[in-house]
């Protein structure tokens, strides 16, 4: 089948799947940021928690994404078939890049700046909020950017557990051995990833302090 014709005939369905895909990504990223950034702030001065948090986030990242979706299905409350399970898996997958960049950004501040801050009588929490966090913004955003691009890709697998999104076309295309149907899922997913990369990259450059 001609890919272009398939696109035109199914444009409403493709647009719907794209919107659904984007919703999955946005919700998952919102949760991942809400967990990973505060956690990254918390582990700056806590070594044991740091090792546990970074270790666990790394483990989630090493589980093959399809397996991670599968593992979650039998777990009560967060598991099952559908969107909720997919979002949980995407969140777990997105944690590491954000957590690691938050930690690296917060601890990578010029030691002279930190020494001056402490020597001038700032408390540790003032140093964290007023010095470390603003100076780490660009690095944290770089982690969010990486995580977003990964999530847009991994979210195509969410279709395997019935969460919808652009993966629906990819799985259907694989079953039908139709390039046109696979491309109907893959091209919008790739475009989403490129758009997110450009947008967040632009934001990152704006936040960077010379």
């Amino acid at each position: 089948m001609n890919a272009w014709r398939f696109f035109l005939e199914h444009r409403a369905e493709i647009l719907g799947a794209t919107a659904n895909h984007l919703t999955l990504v946005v919700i998952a990223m919102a949760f991942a940021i809400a967990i990973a950034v505060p956690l990254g702030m918390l582990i700056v001065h806590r070594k044991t928690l740091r090792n546990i948090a970074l270790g666990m986030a790394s483990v989630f990242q090493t589980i093959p994404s399809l397996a991670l979706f599968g593992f979650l299905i039998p777990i009560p409350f967060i598991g099952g078939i559908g969107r909720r399970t997919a979002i949980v898996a995407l969140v777990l997958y997105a944690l590491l890049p954000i957590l690691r960049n938050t930690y690296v950004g917060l601890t990578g501040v010029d030691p002279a700046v930190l020494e001056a801050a402490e020597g001038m009588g700032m408390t540790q929490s003032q140093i964290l909020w007023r010095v470390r966090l603003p100076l780490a913004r660009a690095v944290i955003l770089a982690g969010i950017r990486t995580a977003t691009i990964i999530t847009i890709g991994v979210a195509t697998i969410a279709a395997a557990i019935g969460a919808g999104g652009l993966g629906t076309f990819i799985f259907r295309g694989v079953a039908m051995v139709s390039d046109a149907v696979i491309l109907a899922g893959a091209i919008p997913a790739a475009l989403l990833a490129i758009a997110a990369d450009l947008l967040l990259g632009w934001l990152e450059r704006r936040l960077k302090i010379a």
Partner: protein
Amino acid sequence: MNPKTVPEKADRTIQFKNVTYSINGTEHHNIVNEIGFSVASGETLLLLGRSGSGKTTLLKLMNRLLVPTTGQVLVHGRPTTEWDPIRLRRGIGYVIQDAGLFPHFTVAQNVALVPSLEKWDSARTNARVHELLTLVGLDPAEFVSRRPHELSGGQRQRVGVARALAADPAILLMDEPFGALDPVTRAELQREFSALARRLGKTIVFVTHDLREALLLASRIILLEGGRIVAAATPQEFLRIDHPEVRAFAASLAPLGGAPA
């Protein structure tokens, strides 16, 4: 150290009582060893020594960035360990070699750091920022809204000094503040700071490895070697002290191959 070098009558703003500081608390890692001296109110004390002689450690013991392993450091008569570290530090200006200005703050915000922590109102803070920038030779109109990366090394250090003076602390600690500057700018800032220090009447402890700087700025010089005080004297007397480390520093003043100046 000879107790006669301690000024007996002057009040002691800072006092070291038999202070040892060691990493991990083990004797083999002593950074400074059984140090005793006092800093009188209003004097400019220069801590002179080579790299690793322990001079920066002494400075950090004064504002409790470090705590003595044994002995006591008294500031305004109270051991630093009994001070609330935040209160102690807000009453002590601190200037370091790389200035340590906040790159995300403007010059005005940097200078206003302690006033903002102390929640001064904005009229008072602004007036103080203008006063201080003028004091350190920077035109407020031109500099308030600049960022540190738009300043030269010398200008950054001027802002660093202004920031340290913001809340009018009685004590000023300076850790090789002019060490990273080019020789011409360094000489300029040394001359200006010397005049400024005399006018302000603050208690200043200044760390350097440069004897020329010590002789120019000090009302008294303490020479450190290997974490111990080996000499203490006024600039006038310093070069007459008969000690190998004093002679080594004196030789650093001499032009290449010549006799000490």
